[in-house]
C-alpha cells in the first residue's frame, strides 16, 4: 500500500512521530476495529479512530438516536433523531475521513451472533451500557483470543481496561459474574456527566492505537479508574485469576451465555 499525497497531508502529524511514521500509518489504515455500541463511549472512540485513519470500523448498535442521548453521544445530532445510531455514526465518521469504511451493524449482540460478528476484526472495543453485553463481549473475546478494550462510565467515574486473553486478566478474573439487577443503580440514579465518556472513550481509543502500532504499554492486568470530581486517575492491578471461570485453569464456562436484560441502560 502506498500513501497518496492527500494521505501524506492528512496524516502528517502521525508520520513525523517516530512511533508512528509512514509504516505505522499504513498499519492503522489496514486495521479493522469493531466497536460495540454507538453511545457515549462508542461515539468518541469511533470519532478518533476514524480521524486517525483506522481503515475499517464496524459499529454494532440496534438503537435509534433519542434526544436524551445528545448530551454526550457526540457522533449524532438533532437532525438525526429517530435514525439508527449505527447509521448516524457511519455518516459522521465517513464525512470526517473518507479513507475509513464504516460498517453499521444494526443488531443486538447475542450468543448466537457474537462470534461470527467479531471474527473478522483485529480488536474489539466495548462501549456497551449494560452488564449482559459486557460479559458476552468478554467471553467471546476470550474464546476468540481477541484483544478487547473495555470501558464503563457512571455519574462522575469511568473505568478502562485492556484485555489480552490468556496473556493477562479478563473481565471475569475480576468479577466472576454480573451483579444481580437489584444491586445495579436504578434508572433515576444512573446519571452521567456528559463529558465523562469523552475522557474514557479517548483513553480507549488511545489503547486501540497503541495495540495496532505495537507501541507503549497498554492496560494489561490493570484497571484504570478515573474520577472526574477529584481529578484522580487510579491504576488498580488485576492479576490473571487461576480460578477464573472462563480463562482459568479449570474453566466452568465452556460456551457462551446470554444473561437476562433488565438492567438500566446508561451508556
Amino acid at each position: 500500500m502506498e500513501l497518496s499525497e492527500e494521505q501524506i497531508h492528512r496524516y502528517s502529524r502521525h508520520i513525523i512521530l517516530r512511533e508512528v511514521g509512514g509504516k505505522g500509518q499504513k498499519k492503522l489504515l489496514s486495521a479493522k476495529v469493531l466497536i460495540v455500541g454507538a453511545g457515549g463511549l462508542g461515539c468518541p472512540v469511533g470519532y478518533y479512530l476514524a480521524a486517525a485513519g483506522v481503515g475499517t470500523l464496524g459499529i454494532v448498535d440496534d438503537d435509534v438516536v433519542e434526544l436524551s442521548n445528545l448530551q454526550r453521544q457526540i457522533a449524532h445530532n438533532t437532525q438525526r433523531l429517530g435514525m439508527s445510531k449505527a447509521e448516524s455514526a457511519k455518516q459522521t465518521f465517513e464525512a470526517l475521513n473518507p479513507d475509513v469504511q464504516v460498517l453499521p451493524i444494526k443488531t443486538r449482540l447475542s450468543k448466537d451472533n457474537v462470534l461470527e460478528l467479531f471474527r473478522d476484526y483485529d480488536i474489539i472495543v466495548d462501549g456497551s451500557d449494560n452488564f449482559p453485553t459486557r460479559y458476552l463481549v468478554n467471553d467471546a473475546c476470550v474464546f476468540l483470543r481477541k484483544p478487547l478494550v473495555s470501558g464503563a462510565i457512571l455519574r462522575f467515574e469511568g473505568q478502562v481496561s485492556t484485555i489480552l486473553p490468556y496473556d493477562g486478566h479478563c473481565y471475569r478474573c475480576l468479577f466472576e459474574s454480573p451483579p444481580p439487577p437489584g444491586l445495579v443503580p436504578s434508572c433515576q440514579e444512573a446519571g452521567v456527566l456528559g463529558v465523562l465518556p469523552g475522557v474514557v472513550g479517548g483513553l480507549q481509543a488511545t489503547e486501540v492505537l497503541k495495540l495496532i502500532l505495537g507501541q507503549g504499554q497498554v492496560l494489561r492486568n490493570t484497571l484504570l479508574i478515573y474520577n472526574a470530581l477529584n481529578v484522580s486517575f487510579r491504576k488498580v492491578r488485576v492479576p490473571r485469576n487461576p480460578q477464573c471461570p472462563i480463562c482459568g485453569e479449570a474453566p466452568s464456562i465452556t460456551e457462551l451465555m446470554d444473561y437476562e436484560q433488565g438492567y438500566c441502560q446508561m451508556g
Partner: protein
Amino acid sequence: MSEALKVDKEIDIRGLVCPYTFVKAKLAVEELQVGQTLRVLLDWPEAAHNIPRSMAEHGQKLSVKQLDEKQWEIIIKKEVED
C-alpha cells in the same frame, strides 16, 4: 561524510514548507535499507536546520551543504531502522 558518496535515492522537495519537508524526508528514509543513502534537495531555510536535527535524533547520520543562497542539499545515511 565524503562528497563522492554513492546516493541510493534522491528527493527534490524544493517548494515545500515545514512540516511537509520533514514528512517527505522521513518517508523517503523509511524506504531505504540500513546503510543506504538519500539526497534531499530543498529550499526552505528552516528545514535545512530542522531536518538534520530531527534525523540525528532518530539516529541517522547526515551532512548538510548550502548549494547557493536559497538551496541546500542534505545527505542522509540510514544507520538505524526506525
